[in-house]
């Protein structure tokens, strides 16, 4: 990343500065400092940062490359499951070893494995370890899975779809079908990932049992901020320069790009896979903060919400995606947690927990109709680019 890159993209610098200030502010106000912000709110903010990370990935694939993927949350979920498997295995192992150590004679490895299997898969009426848990005991391998599995899935799916020149709405529906298939698969008890129970207790980090949650959540918050910063840099670099030129050209007229001699499919595949990997990483950071992951998280609706955030924030600009994701998801949790006072109309009282989705749906239509550039478009009025 040469000097000219930041020089040519001043918004990157501004963004990183804002993110740094925000992170520092939250750290100071958290329980580690002035104790103004509760641990659960630090978790919410940390999760929001992860959502911002997948939102910029979505922005690159949709806003820049023109592929409206309705399946990126599948990659997010896979990342979560991959890290969740290690968290759950390692933690259960700790508990099991602890309880078996009170026996007269030491347990055999087989006994330990059986007991862990019983603990984890008892809820789906099984105690056998499925094959996909083969690496669950290794943090390193599971971290590798966080990257490899979404990457490979995106590579195979993208290769199939782009090769046959499925585009536009068709492609969107195909990606939606992909995430639906994955969610349905995971809902089965014999999927090997505990069916609709999902993986739980992920907020307990093995090896840090004695560390208070306030410290752990702050650490994850900082990790998420770092990931978002790095992700932002990565994507800003990708979409600037000639690569950005080509993928924007693909978005605007892919046939023309082909006649210029570019293998459009390879570019789409590159963008699709790269964003899928980043989505997986975002998921791997998100779910330890959320504490639980289940197949409902991967349902098609989640990926559509992702598109909604990016659209509201403003497509085709990375900070727009961050603003959209942060704004809508925080607003959403504020409204749905009952934090907004009810409005009494005399004949009817508007409970926002009931009406938030209606408001969101309608405002989303309004944004699409009247502000196609989203919230980020407002910056255009503030910063007039010289032309």
């Amino acid at each position, binding site marked *: 990343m040469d000097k000219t890159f930041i020089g040519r993209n001043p918004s990157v610098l501004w963004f990183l500065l804002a993110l740094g200030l925000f992170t520092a502010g939250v750290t100071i106000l958290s329980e580690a400092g002035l104790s103004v912000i509760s641990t659960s709110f630090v978790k919410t903010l940390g999760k929001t940062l992860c959502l911002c990370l997948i939102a910029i990935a979505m922005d690159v694939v949709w806003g820049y490359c023109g592929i409206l993927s309705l399946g990126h949350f599948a990659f997010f979920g896979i990342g979560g499951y991959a890290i969740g498997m290690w968290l759950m295995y390692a933690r259960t192992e700790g508990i099991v070893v602890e309880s078996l150590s009170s026996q007269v*004679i030491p347990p055999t490895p087989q006994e330990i494995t059986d007991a862990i299997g019983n603990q984890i898969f008892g809820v789906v009426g099984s105690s056998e370890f499925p094959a996909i848990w083969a690496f669950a005991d290794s943090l390193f391998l599971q971290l590798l899975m966080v990257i490899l599995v979404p990457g490979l899935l995106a590579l195979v799916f993208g290769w199939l779809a782009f090769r046959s020149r499925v585009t536009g709405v068709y492609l*969107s529906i195909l990606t939606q*079908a992909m995430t639906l298939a994955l969610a*349905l698969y995971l*809902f089965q008890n014999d999927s090997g990932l505990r069916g609709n129970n999902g993986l739980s207790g992920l907020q307990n980090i093995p090896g840090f049992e004695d560390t208070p949650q306030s410290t752990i959540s702050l650490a994850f918050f900082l990790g998420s901020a770092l990931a978002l910063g790095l992700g932002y840099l990565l994507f800003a670099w990708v979409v600037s320069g000639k690569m950005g030129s080509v993928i924007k050209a693909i978005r605007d007229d892919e046939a023309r790009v082909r006649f210029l001699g570019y293998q459009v499919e390879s570019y789409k595949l590159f963008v699709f896979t790269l964003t899928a990997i980043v989505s997986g990483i975002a998921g791997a950071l998100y779910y330890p903060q959320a504490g639980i992951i289940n197949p409902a998280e991967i349902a098609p609706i989640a990926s559509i919400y992702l598109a909604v955030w990016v659209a509201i924030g403003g497509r085709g600009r990375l900070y727009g995606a961050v603003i959209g994701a942060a704004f809508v998801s925080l607003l959403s949790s504020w409204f749905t947690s009952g934090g907004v006072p009810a409005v009494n109309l005399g004949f009817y009282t508007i409970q926002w927990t009931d009406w938030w989705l209606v408001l969101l749906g309608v405002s989303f239509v309004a944004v699409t109709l009247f502000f196609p550039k989203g919230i980020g478009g407002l910056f255009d009025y503030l910063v007039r680019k010289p032309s």
Partner: protein
Amino acid sequence: MHRLILAFALLLGLTPAVSAQTLQDILQTHADEVAKPGRRTVGVVLDDLAASGLPGVAVFLEKWQDKSVWQRDDGQFFIAAEQADTLQLTDIDSGEETSAAKDTFTQLKPNGGVRRVIATALVQFQLMDPDVERRTTAVASIARRPDASQLGPLLGAIDGETDAALKARKIQLANFLSASFAENTEDRIAAINSLSTDTSVEARAVLNQILTTSPGLATSLPTDQNVAGVLTPGEDMTRDEAYRLLVEAELAAPRTPPDVIRAALEANVVDGRVGNIPVAQLGSTANRERAYAQLAAVGTVAPLVTQSDRNAAIDEFIFFETYDEEDKAITQAAAAALGAVENRVAAGQTIDLALDALSLASIYFLAAIGLAITFGVMRVINMAHGEFIMMGAYTGYVVQLFVPSYTASIIIALPLAFAVTFGAGVVMERLVIRHLYHRPLETLLATFGISIALQQLAKNIFGTQARPLTSPEWLDGALVFSDVVQISYIRIAIFVLALIFLGLILYVLKRTRLGLEVRAVTQNPGMAASMGINPDRINMLTFGLGSGIAGIAGVAIGLYAKVTSEMGADYIVQSFMTVVVGGVGNVWGTLAGASLIGFLQKGIEWLNPSNTLAAQTYMILFIILFIQFRPKGIVALKGRAAAD
């Protein structure tokens, strides 16, 4: 057998020698057995009663079974009904009614076993009862508890039967009984052979009953038993199962499971060691077995049965299955008959599956055709299409709140649902879609916004619980071809509805001015506009039409599934896939897509019957692959018109 012959005599109308007696006389002869009946002793009484041929026997037996027979202190029996302190008495023979104080009577309370014996005897009478309902009940009771003793009475009751359906049932049942219980082998085989065309569950149960097997083992295959087949351990059964059989037959020592070893070791820790192995080293299976072997060597515990011991024991024996039925001819006939039946059942199941698939395809067609029309004409994917389906279903629900007659309410609901969703579609087109032409991806998102708003709105209005949309009685039940092939009337109705709409849409598109204009706009909007067709109007009407059909589909779907605010979402992805697979802008394409997806889904469900989730997963994977080979769907537009 004695009873059976008597019963025959009774049924054949022979006048028994004891006919001069009254019922009371017979009962008095066996007064003790009647008053305090036991399962064994009651048989004599029943035989005599049956033999008497007296008309009151059946009534008496029923009352006896009901605990409505009382004995007076002088030993006389009466049928009685309790009324506070008095009894309404009916004379057993004359039927004369009197009443008396309760304290001089004792109620007869036959126990459950006796009551069952009485019931069996009663069946013989009921089978011949003039009342057809009682005969039907009797036949049903035999079917519930088939028993050798019922074969005779049943055979005798066939000829006199006037009701054709009941007669057929009696013959079928008699066949079942003969197959299992007939006296000689020829009769049984004849009955078994006659079952080879019967696909009913009962017939298969009878044949399976004859073919039940038990496992056996010996050093060589026995010749004196009806052997069904040899079981090879490791192939037909697991080696663990084989060993378990050996243990059960006490031919081998039970295996020593790991937890027994552990318990034995824990019980024998001496000075921190088991044998000469320190406790700390017992964390491996090999060391544990060594320690256990040391304990066994000094006789503290039973010797360890190792894997090779078990293998040797298994290899010494032959494992096989024998039929519980000893006659080889019968089991062969039954096996052949069962094979024939299963072939027929398989054929039936295929037909049944095809019918299921057809009705599923009809539903997908109804759900997707509106979407296909709007997508074909306007290149607009309407994510709120599912919510229009939901609106249609709720319209039906609301109509039923006001119109009590289910038939009338459905007749009102269908056009009303069309009108409501047509209106909603037009409003949506005017307010939103119109402004987003040529931005298909944004239309997709805007309509998604409408979709979540409508869904939540429905939740706020109608609540989260499912609302019923009740079908008229004439749609209840199913058209039953056999135990295997049947289809519910609602599904037939939906199929017919889909056919009607297929015809209607084809008519509108091919034979009307509107259809001509719609096709013109589909194929070349610019040219159509320049020829004086107002694309705005066409788009509006098309969108309304597509939405209206969704409303009708909603009523249809609501009839057999529950009406919830989320029902639209359940169908939307399948509808999309129907459109994508079928190809855009063509009614036949949608039909082909719906059929493919419907049949595919049922086919996969059949291959993997335990799991509809897996079936759906595989189906979606198939569609993703299908798109690879036909990216434009089954019925694709060709040439320059297809270029985007």
